[in-house]
C-alpha cells in the first residue's frame, strides 16, 4: 500500500472565492494544518466510474460538426477513426489494424478490423468511411473543419463547391479495405485520421433522424463508450460499449463528464471529491493548488503558441522591419513567463512549440544578455524613426476571453514603455468583436494564438501563408510560401522538418509576429486515477484509464 498525501483544502479561502492574484512562486507556501489524505491501494477499485470535469458544453456531438476541445474529449470516447491515439497521444491502430503506403506517399491502403462493429452490433465497413468523409467535405453538411481533410485528393475542391462529393480520393476496395488517394505526401496522415472529423458516422441513423441523430436515444457510435445521457450544460454520461472491438481491455464502466465553464467550480468539485480529473484549473490558482494538492496538479507542454500579431497592410508596421524587430526584442520573456504566468507556460522565441524530432530554430537574439538585447531594440526603434519626442503610440487589442492574459499584456506594454519609451495601451474587446475586426484586418497590434490540430509543424505554418484565412496580420513572403509548399511535397520527414525550420527563420528575419509563450495543459488528477500520460495534444482517452482502490481518511 502506498499512501499519497493530499493536503487540506483549508489553506486559502480567498483563493477559492475570488481567485488568487499573481503570486511569486518562489516564496515558500504558507504553513498548512494537518491534512486528510487519500490512501491508494494496488488493486482495481470495485466501482469503475470515472468522473471528469469538462470546460464547456460541447457545441455538437456530431463528429463532423464538432470544432471545440470539449467536443473532442467526448468524441474521443464515443468514436474511433481508422487510427486512434495511444496512451502517450501517438497515433495507433484504430478501426484499421494495418496499412500500406505507396513509395511516393500519395496512396494509402487501410485494412479494417473484421471485428469492428457499430454500437448496435452492425458491422463497420470501408463504405462507412467513404460515406463519412464525403459527408464532412460536402458543403451542404456545413462542417466548419472541412479543410481538415484537405490532404485527401479533391477534398478542398469539393468543399469549395467545384467538384461533386464522389470525386473525393477515397474508395472501398471491399468491405474491409479502404484506398485513400492524397493530394501530396502527408507524413502526418495517421495523426490526421485520428481527428474527430475523420471519424466514421452511421448513415442509417443520420438518414432517419437528421440533426437529431446524436441524441442519446438515437445515436450509434463505434468507440469504447456509448452516450447514455446528455444534460445540456450540466452532465454527459457514457457507458462502456460492449460491441467495441477492444472492449475486453476497457476497464472503466461509466464515464461522467461534469460541465463547469467556471474553472474555479471544477477546482471546488475536485476538492469535494465529486470529480476525479479536471479539464483545467484557473492558471492564477496554480501556486496555491500546488501547495495544497502537490502531485495532483499536473501541467505539461501543450501544442500551442501565444503571440502578438502585427498588421502588415498598414502603418506603422507595414514596411517597417526595424520597428517590428524592436518590439520583438524588447520583451523579457523569461521573467514574464515566471511571474505573470506563474511558470505554467514556457517562454517562446519561435512559432512551432517543442515537438519530438523538430529542432526549433532559436534566433540569435534569444541568446543575448538583457542589456545587449535592450540596447539592440532601442537602436532598431530609433532606426524606425521613433524617439522620446515621437514615441510609438498604439493600442494592444486583446479579448476578454482569457482574464489572466490582461496582466500579462499590461506587463508587456510596461516593458516596451521602460525599454523603448513606446506608449502602448492594452485594450480589451469582446471575443466576437475581436474576431470580426481581425478578419477585416482592422487591428494593428493584437492578441493571437494558435493551437495545432495535429502534432506536425505544418498546422502552424499555414497561419502565415499568403492569403490564409487565419493570417490576421496579412503577412506575405513568397520565400516563406515556397518553403512551406516544398515541405508539402516532401515525403521524407527529416527533410520536411528542415524545410519548416528554414521557413521559421524567414518568419524571424521578417519579425512576422511577436512570440510570447507556449501553452501548457492544466489538470487536477486524483492519485487513484491511472492509465494516462501527459501529451502535447492533451488527448487522454477514458479507454485507457482505470481507478485503483482508494479510501479517504
Amino acid at each position: 500500500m502506498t499512501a499519497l498525501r493530499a493536503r487540506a483544502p483549508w489553506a486559502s479561502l480567498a483563493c477559492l472565492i475570488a481567485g488568487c492574484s499573481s503570486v511569486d512562486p518562489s516564496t515558500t507556501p504558507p504553513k498548512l494544518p494537518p491534512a486528510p489524505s487519500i490512501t491508494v491501494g494496488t488493486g482495481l477499485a470495485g466501482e469503475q466510474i470515472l468522473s471528469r470535469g469538462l470546460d464547456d458544453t460541447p457545441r455538437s456531438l456530431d463528429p463532423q460538426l464538432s470544432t471545440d476541445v470539449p467536443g473532442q474529449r467526448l468524441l474521443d470516447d464515443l468514436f474511433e477513426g481508422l487510427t486512434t491515439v495511444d496512451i502517450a497521444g501517438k497515433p495507433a491502430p484504430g478501426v484499421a489494424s494495418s496499412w500500406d503506403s505507396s513509395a511516393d506517399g500519395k496512396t494509402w491502403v487501410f485494412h479494417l478490423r473484421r471485428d469492428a462493429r457499430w454500437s448496435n452490433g452492425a458491422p463497420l465497413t470501408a463504405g462507412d468511411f467513404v460515406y463519412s468523409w464525403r459527408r464532412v467535405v460536402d458543403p451542404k453538411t456545413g462542417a466548419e473543419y472541412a479543410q481538415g481533410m484537405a490532404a485527401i485528393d479533391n477534398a478542398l475542391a469539393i468543399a469549395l463547391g467545384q467538384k461533386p462529393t464522389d470525386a473525393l480520393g477515397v474508395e472501398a476496395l471491399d468491405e474491409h479495405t479502404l484506398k485513400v488517394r492524397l493530394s501530396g505526401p502527408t507524413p502526418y496522415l495517421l495523426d490526421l485520421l485520428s481527428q474527430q472529423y475523420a471519424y466514421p458516422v452511421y448513415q442509417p441513423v443520420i438518414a432517419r433522424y437528421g440533426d437529431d441523430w446524436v441524441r442519446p436515444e438515437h445515436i450509434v457510435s463505434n468507440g469504447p463508450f456509448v452516450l447514455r445521457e446528455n444534460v445540456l450544460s450540466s452532465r454527459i454520461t457514457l457507458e462502456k460499449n460492449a460491441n467495441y472491438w477492444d472492449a475486453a481491455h476497457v476497464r472503466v464502466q461509466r464515464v461522467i463528464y461534469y460541465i463547469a465553464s467556471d474553472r474555479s467550480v471544477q477546482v471546488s468539485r475536485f476538492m469535494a471529491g465529486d470529480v476525479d480529473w479536471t479539464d483545467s484549473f484557473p492558471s492564477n490558482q496554480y501556486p496555491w493548488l500546488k501547495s495544497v494538492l502537490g502531485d495532483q496538479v499536473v501541467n505539461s507542454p501543450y501544442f500551442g503558441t501565444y503571440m502578438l500579431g502585427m498588421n502588415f497592410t498598414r502603418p506603422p508596421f507595414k514596411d517597417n522591419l526595424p520597428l517590428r524587430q524592436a518590439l520583438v526584442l524588447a520583451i523579457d520573456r523569461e521573467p514574464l513567463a515566471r511571474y505573470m504566468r506563474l511558470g505554467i507556460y514556457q517562454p517562446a522565441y519561435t512559432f512551432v512549440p517543442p515537438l519530438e524530432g523538430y529542432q526549433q530554430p532559436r534566433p540569435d537574439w534569444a541568446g543575448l544578455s538583457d542589456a545587449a538585447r535592450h540596447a539592440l531594440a532601442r537602436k532598431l526603434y530609433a532606426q524606425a524613426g521613433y524617439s522620446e519626442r515621437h514615441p510609438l503610440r498604439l493600442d494592444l487589442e486583446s479579448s476578454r476571453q482569457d482574464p489572466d492574459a490582461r496582466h500579462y499584456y499590461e506587463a508587456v506594454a510596461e516593458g516596451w514603455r521602460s525599454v523603448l519609451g513606446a506608449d502602448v495601451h492594452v485594450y480589451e474587446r469582446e471575443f466576437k468583436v475581436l474576431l470580426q475586426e481581425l478578419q477585416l484586418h482592422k487591428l494593428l497590434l493584437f492578441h493571437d494564438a494558435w493551437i495545432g490540430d495535429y502534432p506536425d509543424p505544418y498546422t502552424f505554418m499555414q497561419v502565415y501563408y499568403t492569403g490564409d484565412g487565419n493570417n490576421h496580420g496579412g503577412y506575405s513572403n513568397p520565400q516563406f510560401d515556397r518553403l512551406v509548399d516544398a515541405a508539402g511535397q516532401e515525403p521524407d520527414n527529416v527533410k520536411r522538418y528542415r524545410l519548416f525550420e528554414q521557413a521559421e527563420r524567414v518568419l524571424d528575419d521578417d519579425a512576422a509576429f511577436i512570440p510570447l509563450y507556449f501553452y501548457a495543459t492544466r489538470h487536477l488528477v486524483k492519485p487513484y486515477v491511472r492509465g494516462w500520460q501527459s501529451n502535447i495534444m492533451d488527448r487522454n482517452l477514458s479507454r485507457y484509464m482505470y481507478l485503483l482502490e482508494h479510501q479517504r481518511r
Partner: protein
Amino acid sequence: MLRYTVRRLLGAIPTLLVIVTLAFLLLHAAPGGPFDAAKRMLPEIQKSIEAKYHLDEPLWRQYLRYLGDLARGDLGPSFQYRGTSVNEIIAQGLPVDATIGLTAITLALVVGGAVGVNAALRRGSRWDYGSMAFAVAGISTPVFVVAPLMILIFAVTLHWLPAGDWVGGSPSHLVLPAIALALPYVAYIARLMRGSTIEVLNSPFIRTARAKGLPLRLIVWRHALRPTLTPLVSFLGPAIAGLLTGSIVVESVFGLPGIGRHFITAALNRDYTLVIGITVLYGALIILFNLLADLCYAWIDPRVRLR
C-alpha cells in the same frame, strides 16, 4: 375579474412584440456573427451554414420568419449548440430553475416573514437589532461569496452535501443552491415585513382591536397579517419571474443545468435565437406574475377593485 384578466393578457401581446423587436435588432446590430470562429472556415461552407439558418436573407425577412415561428410557439434552432432547439433548451432548464426558485422563495417567505414580523413585534429589542443586522448583511453579501463559502464548508470540508450537479433534483443536491439563492430574499423579505408590520400595527384599526382587549396573537393573525402582505406581493411578482428564469451565479457555481447561464453565453456567442427566446420567456413571466400580483391585491385589500 375575468374580463380584467383577459384584457391584461391581450395587452401583453404588443408589449412582448416590442421586446422581441428590440432584442432582435440589438442582437443583429452587435458586431460578429454566431459562426465567426477563431479558426476560419471555407467560404462555401460558411455560405451553406448561413443558408441553413437563413442568415443569408435580408434582415426584415429573418424578422418576419422569426415572428411567424414564434406565433406557432417555435423559438427556432440554437446556433451555438448545433442540432438543439431553443424550445428544448428551455424545456430542459426551466424545471431546474423552477424547482430551485420555488424552494428558495418558499424558504425566504417562511423564514423572512417570521423574522420580520417578530422583529416588528419586538421593536427596539436585541432580537430586532440582531435580525436586522443579519438582514443588512444578507442583502449586501453577494451570492458569489456565499455560495463558494457554503461549498467550502459543507462539501469540501465536512463532506455533508455534494458541491454541485443536479441528478434529477434530488433533495441533497437542492439544499445548498436553494439556501444560497434564498439568503438575500430572506433578508429582503424580513426587512419588508418588519416595515409593513410596524406601519400596520400603528394604524387606527389595530388600535381599535387593542382597545377591544384582544390578545396580541389574535390581533396579528386575524387583523394585521393580511394588510402587511401588500408590499410583499408587489415585490414577489417580479422576484418569482426572475427566480424562474434562473440565477446565473448560483447556476454556474453549483453547475446546475438551468437557463440563466445560457443567457450570458448565448449573448457572447451571438446565439440570436437563444437570447431572444429567453428574453421573450422572461418578459412573458414578468407580465404574468405582475398580473397575478395585481389579482392578489384584490384578495388582500378589499378596497382595491379591479376593472
